[in-house]
C-alpha cells in the first residue's frame, strides 16, 4: 500500500507523475472516490509520467480517451454511465486490455466484475480541508 497527502491539484499531478515510474504496459488502475475528488487530475500527472505529450481531459462524453503520443500509451476511461455488459463491451474495454498500454478507469465501481486479476486500486478521498486529498494505491503488486 502507498499513501500520499496532497494539498493542491498541482501536487496531485506531481504524485501521479512520480507514481507512473512504477507502472508498465498492461497495468490496470481502477479509481474509486466520489465526484470531483481529483481522478482526472491524477490522470494528467500519470500521462506526463508515462512520457505522453497528449492533452488529458475528462472522458465523460467519449467514455474513453487514448493518449498515445509517447512512451507507454494510456487509455483513460470514465465508466460513470456504464451499467451493463453490452455497454462495457462496446467501449472496446476488453480490446484495450490487450493493447499493451496502461488503463486508468474512473468510476470503476460500475464494472467491478470485469476488472482483471492484478488490478491496482487508486482511492482519492477528501482530507482535512477543501484542497486536501488522501491518495491511496493498493492491490495488485502494491
Amino acid at each position: 500500500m502507498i499513501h500520499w497527502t496532497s494539498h493542491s491539484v498541482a501536487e496531485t499531478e506531481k504524485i501521479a507523475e512520480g507514481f507512473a515510474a512504477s507502472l508498465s504496459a498492461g497495468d490496470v488502475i481502477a479509481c474509486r472516490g466520489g465526484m470531483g475528488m481529483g481522478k482526472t487530475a491524477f490522470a494528467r500527472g500519470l500521462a506526463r509520467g508515462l512520457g505522453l505529450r497528449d492533452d488529458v481531459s475528462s472522458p465523460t462524453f467519449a467514455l474513453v480517451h487514448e493518449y498515445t503520443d509517447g512512451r507507454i500509451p494510456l487509455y483513460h476511461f470514465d465508466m460513470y454511465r456504464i451499467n451493463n455488459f453490452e455497454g462495457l463491451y462496446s467501449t472496446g474495454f476488453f480490446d484495450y486490455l490487450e493493447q499493451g498500454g496502461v488503463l486508468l478507469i474512473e468510476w470503476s465501481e460500475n464494472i467491478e466484475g470485469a476488472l482483471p486479476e492484478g488490478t491496482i486500486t487508486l482511492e482519492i478521498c477528501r482530507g482535512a480541508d477543501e484542497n486536501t486529498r488522501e491518495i491511496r494505491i493498493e492491490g495488485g503488486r502494491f
Partner: protein
Amino acid sequence: MKLLMIDTSSQSAGCAIVEDGKLLGENYTNVNLTHSQTILPMVAMLLEQTHVKQEEIGLFGVTVGPGSFTGLRIGMAAVKGMAHALGKKCVPVSTLEALAWNMCGYDCLVAPVLDARCSQVYTALFAWQGMQLQRLEEDRACSITELGQRLKNVKNPVFLVGDGAQLCYNILKEEIPGLRLPSPAQIYTRAASAALAAERAAAAAVDPAQLEPSYLRLPQAQRELLARQKMKMV
C-alpha cells in the same frame, strides 16, 4: 476465382487468398491487439508476395463475429472499403464456423470458443465427417460452466479451437476427459480456414454495404455479470 479473406475478429489477425480450393498465400500475426495498424499492410504484403493484383480479386470474405468489438469493426471497415472500391461482393463468415474449418480433414467434433470475458464464451458445435462440415449448434454466448455441461454429454473427442480454447481446456479437462487441443498452428482463427469456408458459402455473398457484424448478446442478467465478482471479492 480468387477470394481475399480478412480476419481481425479476435486475438489474432490475418489475411489469405484462395483460388478454387487452393491456398495461394496467407499472413498471420498473434501479438498485441493493434489490428487497425497491421491488417492493411498485411494485405498489401500478401498481394505482393503472391503476385496478385487487386483487380484480380473476384470476391472478398470477412469474419463477421462473434468476437472482439473493435476487431470486428476493423475487419468490416477494411473489407467494405476494398470491396466497394473494386465493385466486388463480400462473403460474411461466422468467426466460429471459420474456426471449425481449422479442423477440416479430421473426423471429429469441434467446439470453437472465443473468450467473451467474465467467464463467458461465444461458442457453437460442429462435426466434421468425410470433408463435410455439419453444424450441430447455432452460435451462442454462455458461461464456461454451461459449456462444460453441454460437452459432457457429447461423444469424444471434442477439439477446442479459438482464443478461449486454452482457458476452457484448463478449466474443463478434468470434468471432460475427451477434450482435446489441436496444434498451436490450428488454435486461433486462420484466414486460410475462413477463406475456404467463404468459398463454400460464396452463394451467400452480399454487397459491401450490407455487411454487418454479428454481436451475440450474453444471456446473463447483465448488471449481475458486472457485479457478481464484486460480491466474491468482498
